[in-house]
């Protein structure tokens, strides 16, 4: 069974202690007994309102946090700390500002101990993949938000993780750039077929990108439904089923 399921989330909850200002000893439940499975090579999105624990869930999958109860397992093994097998693209700006793009992409390869030349060649290859080869010697501050996020994706892919987690990677981009990035991400995904878990606010974005969508609700944060998206690819928003699915998710969240 572990061959089919990349990630298994089993009765996972996460409880945070509140700060002194909010009353000592009190806690907040970010995630309440959540279970679902991520299949190998699928594109799964997680949608839900702010504060439903989407990002918390993603951090647990990445091994940056540990669950209060339950277990996150990757290929049958409990995830306890980051290993490099599960990549994560952050929403905010996470490139090292003192490194050029190509050296930023090289970073993970340096951690892997790849020889210099090889690391550089591979970094260039991934810059090519996201269409940034021409900017290889630019510093992050010289680039637009969209370019930076493309570079962050290239950096995460370059270490060849089995699973790529993405935490609202396009959340800070303008609407136009966002649409372009969605298309590009799909093109990259179709080439590599990595397992992707994509957290987003935008139901439209989730329907456009995903094989399946996990819908979350808040108070307490939990997954209320996992839906299959049976729309042919490449998708178009003109397809009436696109609108219907979007509508039904909105209803599920009681908008």
């Amino acid at each position, binding site marked *: 069974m572990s061959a089919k399921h990349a990630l298994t989330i089993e009765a996972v909850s996460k409880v945070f202690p509140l700060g002194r200002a909010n009353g000592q000893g009190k806690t907040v439940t970010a995630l309440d007994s959540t279970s679902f499975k991520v299949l190998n090579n699928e594109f799964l999105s997680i949608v839900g309102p702010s504060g439903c624990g989407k990002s918390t869930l993603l951090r647990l999958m*990445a091994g940056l946090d540990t669950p209060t109860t339950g277990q996150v397992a990757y290929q049958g093994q409990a995830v306890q700390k*980051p290993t490099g097998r599960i*990549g994560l693209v*952050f929403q*905010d700006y996470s490139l*090292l500002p*003192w490194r050029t793009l190509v050296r930023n992409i090289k*970073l993970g390869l340096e951690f892997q101990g790849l020889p210099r030349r090889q690391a550089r060649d591979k970094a260039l290859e991934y810059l090519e993949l996201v269409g940034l080869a021409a900017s290889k010697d630019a*510093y992050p501050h010289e680039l637009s938000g969209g370019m930076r996020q493309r570079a*962050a994706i290239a950096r995460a892919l370059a270490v060849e993780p089995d699973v790529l987690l993405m935490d609202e990677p396009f959340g800070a981009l303008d609407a136009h750039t966002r649409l372009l990035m969605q298309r590009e991400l799909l093109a990259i995904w179709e080439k590599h077929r990595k397992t992707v878990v994509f957290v987003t606010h935008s139901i439209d974005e989730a329907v456009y990108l995903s094989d399946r969508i996990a819908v979350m609700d808040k108070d307490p944060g939990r997954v209320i439904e996992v839906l299959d998206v049976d729309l042919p690819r490449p998708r178009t928003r003109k397809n009436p089923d696109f609108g219907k699915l979007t509508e039904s998710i909105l209803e599920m969240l009681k908008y």
Partner: protein
Amino acid sequence: MNQRITSFFLPLVVPALFLWGWETTAVRVANDIILPRLGDVLAVLAHPIQPIIGMGSLLSNVGISLARVLFGYLAAVALAIPLGILMGYCAGAHRLLNNFLSVFRPIPPLAWTPLMLAWFGITSPATVFNMEIGPAYIFFNNLKFSMAFIIFIGGFFPVLTSSVHGVRSVRRVLIESSLVLGANRLDIFRKVILPAASPSILTGMRIGLGVAWMCLVSAEMLPGSLSGVGYLITHAYTVGRQDIVITGMVSIGVMGALMDQGFRLCERRMLFWRGMS
């Protein structure tokens, strides 16, 4: 064109007014002890390798002061940076040392003088290592431990504070994004924390050097001092040569400003990315 001329002359306006005001006041006062004339000071400055008031040349005194400041300052940097990084990186070290060091921080370096004299007297690397009498002995005997310690205290705390701050304010997302790329603790330290903290550390080093330089005069007033710009100033005062006092002040000011400028150049070249994230 017009604008370029203006922007070239603008920084010179205040110094020119200042010098003019000095000279006219000095002429009116007509008392060398209260205010020597501009020309007298310039005359001393114009001959930096001529011996003055039996103390050797201005240049050699500046050189000795520079060596003293660097001696104390480099020791401060060598201790404060690793300690600051440790305290910034490791919460336990911070808890262990922060309160303790906070009590020492406000003590003016000069207040250490009596203790310094009691502990170190007039020892120097030359006396400790029993060096042979000769030029090397004379040079190293100028670097008294008591003076170096005063300068050390001056330089230590700015560097320490900024190192702690630099390490502590590294953005979490930089560390976490490296962790998910498979970094170990040493990788994170070398490739993320150290470069991210370097602007703050460099700023602390610049401030620390300024403070160390300011401690010079008090350090050179200690017994066993027979040279250096600080001593030159106090000695010139006792023999009533106010022009040499001012020459010493100008030398300290110019040297300090030059070193500060050097640091700024370094910062600009190395840390062009600062504030860009």
